[in-house]
């Protein structure tokens, strides 16, 4: 029982899409605040570079590749949904999820390795931001995957296909955040 309000579109943009854009605005400032704090502190502390040297750039680079690929399949899912092919859109969404899963697994190995080497969240300025920023991002990956599975399960039955685009928007955002995190946490040494 949807209210009539939900079906209206005074702005000419679908309600769900408009809402996703506003969600992204609120997310941008959350990550923006965290990263701005990190950058300001990083510039003030040269010694953080030595700590950052212990991160695994290759694992980070691989994960960047994985996320970018998964964004591509999210775009393909959107295209399929536009054409009204729900099952195909769902398949692409599952592929996107798989990308997210690979990303998290790689991340898990990385963290396990670093923690074994004694670099934990308490180990100093850089590591605090490293775990917090990457953890917050990982949490968004996980949330995105959960939503995607939910959207895919109804897309499979050709229902609510407009949601495929919305969840794709969100996934691109998660991707872009990583594109900021990767150079800031891995490459800058």
């Amino acid at each position, binding site marked *: *029982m949807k*209210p*009539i*309000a*939900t079906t*209206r*579109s*005074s*702005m000419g*943009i679908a*309600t769900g899409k*408009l*809402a996703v854009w*506003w*969600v992204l*605005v*609120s*997310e*941008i*400032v*959350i*990550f*923006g*605040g*965290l990263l*701005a*704090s990190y950058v*300001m*502190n990083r510039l*003030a*502390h040269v*010694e953080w570079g030595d700590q950052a040297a212990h991160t695994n750039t290759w694992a980070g680079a691989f994960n960047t590749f994985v996320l970018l690929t998964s964004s591509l399949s999210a775009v393909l899912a959107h295209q399929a949904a536009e054409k009204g092919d729900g099952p195909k859109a769902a398949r692409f969404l599952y592929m996107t999820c798989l990308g997210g899963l690979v990303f998290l697994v790689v991340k898990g190995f990385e963290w396990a390795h670093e923690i074994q080497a004694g670099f934990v*969240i*308490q180990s*100093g*300025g850089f590591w*605090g*931001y490293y775990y*917090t920023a990457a953890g*917050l991002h990982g949490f968004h990956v996980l949330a995105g995957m959960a939503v995607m599975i939910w959207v895919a399960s109804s897309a499979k039955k050709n229902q609510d296909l407009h949601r495929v685009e919305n969840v794709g928007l969100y996934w691109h955002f998660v991707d872009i955040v990583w594109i900021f995190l990767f150079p800031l946490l891995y490459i800058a040494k």
Partner: protein
Amino acid sequence: MSNQHDAHDHHAGAHAHHDEGWFKKYFWSTDHKIIGFQYMFTGMLLALVGAFMAYVFRMQLAFPGQAVPGWGLVSPGQYNMLITNHGSIMIFWVAMPVLIAGFGNYIIPLMIGADDMVFPRLNRLSYQLFFISVLLLIASLLVQNGGFGGAWTAYPPLSANKDFNLTPLGSTLWLLAVAVEFVAFLLGGINFIVTAMNARAPGMKAFDVPIVVWTIVIASILFMASVGPLVAGAVMLLFDQTLGTSFFNPNKGGDPILWQHLFWFFGHPEVYVVLLPAMGIVAEVMTVFARKKLFAYKTVIYTIIATGVLSFFVWAHHQFVAGIDPRMANVFTVTTVLISIPIAEMCFVYIATLYGGSIRLTTPMLWALAFMAEFMLGGVTGIYLGSSGADIFFHDTYFVVAHFHYTFFPIAIIAVMSGVTYWFPKMFGRHLNEFWGKVHFWGTIIPFNGIFIPLFILGAAGEHRRIFDYHSFPHLATPELQAMRVFATVSLVVMLAFQPVFIVNYLVSMFRGKKADKNPWKANTLEWTADSPPPHGNWPELPNCYRGPYEYSVEGRELDYWPQNEKA
């Protein structure tokens, strides 16, 4: 679709749909009006808690070291806990839920002619999260070692380290409560913004939207754009408290001032987040009871937007003497003083709206006018604090306390009372008793000035904040200054003594008041075309909109109002 159903047989339909049991109707409802009530009543109950805290610490200040009736002796730790939570509650759990979430939920769909918010279940989730935050807050007060006492600004290292604040559990629960509350309002805010942008009645253009809807939406955008860094900051502080990270720990390479930037980057826009909806409510009430078109509607909207934008560039005026680069203070003095331009313009426009009117001093109008009269004092005293040179002295004195109470009290109490009394007939289908409404008005406004005018003077005498007893400071422990503290406290007690008048009047009028028809105030906006109270779905047939909201006393018309939904 319930709406089509209602269209056929409204009364029968309403009953069939609402026979859902008490719990489902009032606690699990997705109806925007019920959720609005949930927010409003939760906020008002917490206002009583916050007011009780004010009573306890004002008594301690007036009669230091003596047992406070209803509480007992006030220890320094308890005193800190009381002032901290008084501030947190009044801003985060009273002003925000009542003004934005409460009124926003109740009136936005009604004013824009929609049957509900665009995401009703998200709306319900928002309140449920808010409710969890209330439980967390209350838990934080009751745990071992007592509630958090590091002020509502929660500056680290005091807030981050249990060896310094001595309330490990209380501080963590308090921080969690605030963080959960932010998430609740982010969800609610997205709903308000999208609803107002997308779900307007056919024919309602952006500049046909009532000011109060504009202000709530812009406030939601401000909140959304400013709270992010603090959400990140809250996570960092939580890690500092519980995991032992060192984001704000200077001994391990962290920076305590960083928190202040994150906090005030949110904290200052937050002032406008609650101010704007209050100004919106006042605009509605003033136009209706002056029977006047709002003077320069578009100017008001531009000043709202200008205030919102400027509010992002003033935050460091809270930190002039906090150890930031002193050159930064000059920039922030300029931006801070310049914010007086849109705010002064807004006040001028409101005053000009009265010109040529036919002013009726009903209870809601008295509250609205009192808002203007009192808020202006709050506004001008802000200039002292924005002027860096003077703020060296005034920072963290009672002058600041008096200043922001002259802004927040008009916002969170006076404007809210104006809204509550104005929409009362719509909400409950009955009139609020005017006589007792006015008794409550005068019994609140006069003592309010009695509380805070002495505090301006105490602040000018150098009395600094958050001190439970001034005996350690000989220049502040003089009998003259003590007499002023007693005067303020007595005024507070008088004001509190008048509040039961409101509560009783409210409850009695709700059930026994004179019946109200659809449009008792002869107002233009769409909510007055629905039944009082509106059923689930609001209208049997959703209205169309043909004109702006403030077409009062149009020349050549017999009636002095022109509802937005009336064709020609």
